[in-house]
C-alpha cells in the first residue's frame, strides 16, 4: 500500500542540477580548445578571427602527426592488455572465500597508483635500457607494457566493483542447466560484467593517453607521444596546431563511438 508520492523514488534533490553543471564544466574547456583551433592568429589565448590555418599547419607537421599516431597505438595496446589482465585478476580475487595472499595481490595491483610517476620512470629507464642493450629491440613494446602496468589498477577497480555486487544466482542457474564453465562465463558472467569492463577499458585508455613522465623517460627515438611532444613545447609557447589535432581526435572519437552505438543497437 505505498503512498502516492509527488516525486520519483530515485530522484535525489539537486542531482540533476549538479550533474548538468558538471557536464557544462567538463565541456567548457573542450569548447574553448575547439574554438581556438579555428583561430586566425598564432595565439592560444587571443582571438583573431576564423581560419583553418592550424589544421593546415598540423597536417604539414610530421612531428605532431607521428606523435598522435604513437599516442593512439600505445593507448590502444595498453588499454587492451591491461583490461584483459585486470578482468582476469578481478575474477580471481572476488566472490571467493578469503585466502592467504589476497591482500598481497591487492597491494600489488594498486602499487602503480601509490608511487609518483617520476619514480617508476627513473627505475624503468634503467630496466628498459638494460633490455634494449641485451635484445636490441627498441619498439613501442616497452611503452605499451609500461603503460599497461600503470593502467591495471584503473581497469581493475571498476571491474571488481561490478563483480562484487553481481548476482550469483544466474551463474548457478546456468551451471545447473549443464552449461560448461566456459559457456557460463561467456554467456552469463561476461555480458553481466561488460559495463565494468568497458568502464575499466576507457579509464585505462585515457590514463595511458595522459601519461607524460614515464613516457618521457623510456621512449626510444621517434616515439614522442602527444603529451611528451607538448611538454617539449612548454618552454617555447604552445601553438594552436595541437588544438587542431585534439579537435580532429575528438571528432574521430565521436564518429567511432556513434558507429559503435548504432552497430550494437542494430544487433539487438
Amino acid at each position: 500500500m505505498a503512498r502516492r508520492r509527488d516525486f520519483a523514488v530515485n530522484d535525489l534533490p539537486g542531482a540533476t542540477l549538479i550533474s548538468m553543471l558538471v557536464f557544462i564544466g567538463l565541456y567548457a574547456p573542450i569548447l574553448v580548445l575547439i574554438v581556438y583551433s579555428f583561430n586566425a592568429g598564432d595565439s592560444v589565448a587571443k582571438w583573431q578571427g576564423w581560419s583553418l590555418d592550424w589544421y593546415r599547419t598540423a597536417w604539414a607537421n610530421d612531428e605532431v602527426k607521428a606523435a598522435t599516431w604513437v599516442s593512439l597505438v600505445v593507448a590502444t595496446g595498453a588499454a587492451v592488455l591491461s583490461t584483459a589482465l585486470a578482468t582476469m585478476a578481478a575474477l580471481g580475487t572476488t566472490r571467493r572465500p578469503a585466502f592467504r595472499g589476497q591482500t598481497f595481490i591487492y597491494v600489488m595491483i594498486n602499487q602503480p597508483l601509490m608511487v609518483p610517476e617520476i619514480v617508476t620512470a627513473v627505475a624503468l629507464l634503467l630496466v628498459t635500457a638494460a633490455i634494449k642493450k641485451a635484445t636490441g629491440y627498441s619498439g613501442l613494446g616497452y611503452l605499451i607494457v609500461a603503460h599497461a602496468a600503470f593502467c591495471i589498477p584503473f581497469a581493475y577497480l571498476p571491474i571488481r566493483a561490478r563483480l562484487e555486487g553481481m548476482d550469483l544466482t544466474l551463474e548457478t542457474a546456468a551451471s545447473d542447466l549443464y552449461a560448461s564453465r566456459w559457456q557460463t562465463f561467456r554467456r552469463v558472467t561476461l555480458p553481466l560484467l561488460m559495463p565494468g569492463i568497458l568502464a575499466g577499458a576507457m579509464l585505462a585508455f585515457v590514463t595511458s593517453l595522459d601519461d607524460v613522465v614515464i613516457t618521457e623517460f623510456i621512449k626510444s627515438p621517434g616515439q614522442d607521444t602527444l603529451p611528451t611532444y607538448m611538454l617539449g613545447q612548454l618552454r617555447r609557447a604552445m601553438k594552436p596546431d595541437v588544438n587542431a589535432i585534439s579537435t580532429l581526435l575528438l571528432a574521430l572519437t565521436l564518429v567511432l563511438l556513434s558507429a559503435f552505438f548504432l552497430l550494437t543497437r542494430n544487433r539487438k
Partner: protein
Amino acid sequence: MSPAEETAVRDQVRSAWYLSAPALAVLTLAAVGPLLIVLVYSFLTPGTHGNIEWIFSLEGWRGVLFEYDIFDDTLKLADGNLTIFWRSVKLSFVTTVLTFIVGFPTAWFIATRPTKARAAWLFLITIPFWTNLLIRTFAINQIIRNEGVLNTLLLKAGVISTPIQLTYTDTALLIGMVYVYLPLMVLPLFATIDRFDMRLLEAGYDLYASRWQVLRRVILPIIKPGIIAGSILVFIPCLGAYVTPRILGGGKNMMIGNFIELQFGQGKNWPLGAALSVALLVIVTIALLVYVRTISGERKNG
C-alpha cells in the same frame, strides 16, 4: 568441512592465483620490480651530476626528515619537505572530497536514466578525457584567466566588478585536479549505483524515512564499494600529481610529485628522491591497508 568442500576451496584459491598471475607478472616487470632499484638507490651516494655512486650511505634517508642548515651546518627538521608533504596530503584530500560531492550526484543522475540513455550519458562524461591532459589543463587556464571566459561573463553579468584572480592559486589547482580526476570517481560510483535495487528506496520511503535518512542509511552503505574504489583512484594519484600543479598551480608551490622530480632533475640528489618516494609509498600502503582492513572488517560484522 567435508573433504570435498576442502578440495573445492583449494581449487578456488589455486584458480585465484592462476587468474591473477598474468597481471602480477606485468606489474612485477614494469612497476614493482623497478621499485626495488629505487629502494637500493635510496641507500647510495648521489653522483656529482645526478645519478648515483655505488657507495652505501644513509644520507638520502636522513634528508627525508632532517637537513643541515646550509649556512651554520646545524641539523634541524626538514620543514620544507614536511610542508610540501602536508600540502600534498591536504590538497589531495580536498580534491577527493570535492570529486565525491560533484561526482556522486552525477553518477546517480546517469544511473537513473533509462537503460538506453545510460550508456550515452556515460560516454558523454568520458569524451572530454579523450583529449589529452596537457591540452585540457591549458584550456582550463584559458577559462579562468583574468581576461578569460569566466571573468568576462561574471563581469558582464554584474556579479563582480573586478576580475577574480584565479590563475595560479590553490583554487585553480583544485579546479584542475577535480576536473582531471572526476571520471575516476564517477565511473566506479556509477558501476555500484547501476546495480542498486531502487525498490530499496521505495521500502525506505514506505517506512517514513526522510530523503536524508534514505541517503544516509540506505544509499551510502550500499554504494560503499564504489566510494572506496573512487576515493583510492582519486586520492593516491593526486598525491603524486605533476602536470596539474606545474601548469595550474603556477609552480610557486610544489607538491610531493614535483619535489621528488626536482631531486631526480635539477637537484641532482637521486638518493634523496628515492628515499622520499619509498617513504611516500610506505605511508600510502599502510594507509591503504588500514583502510581496506577496516572496510572488510565492517562488512563481516554487518
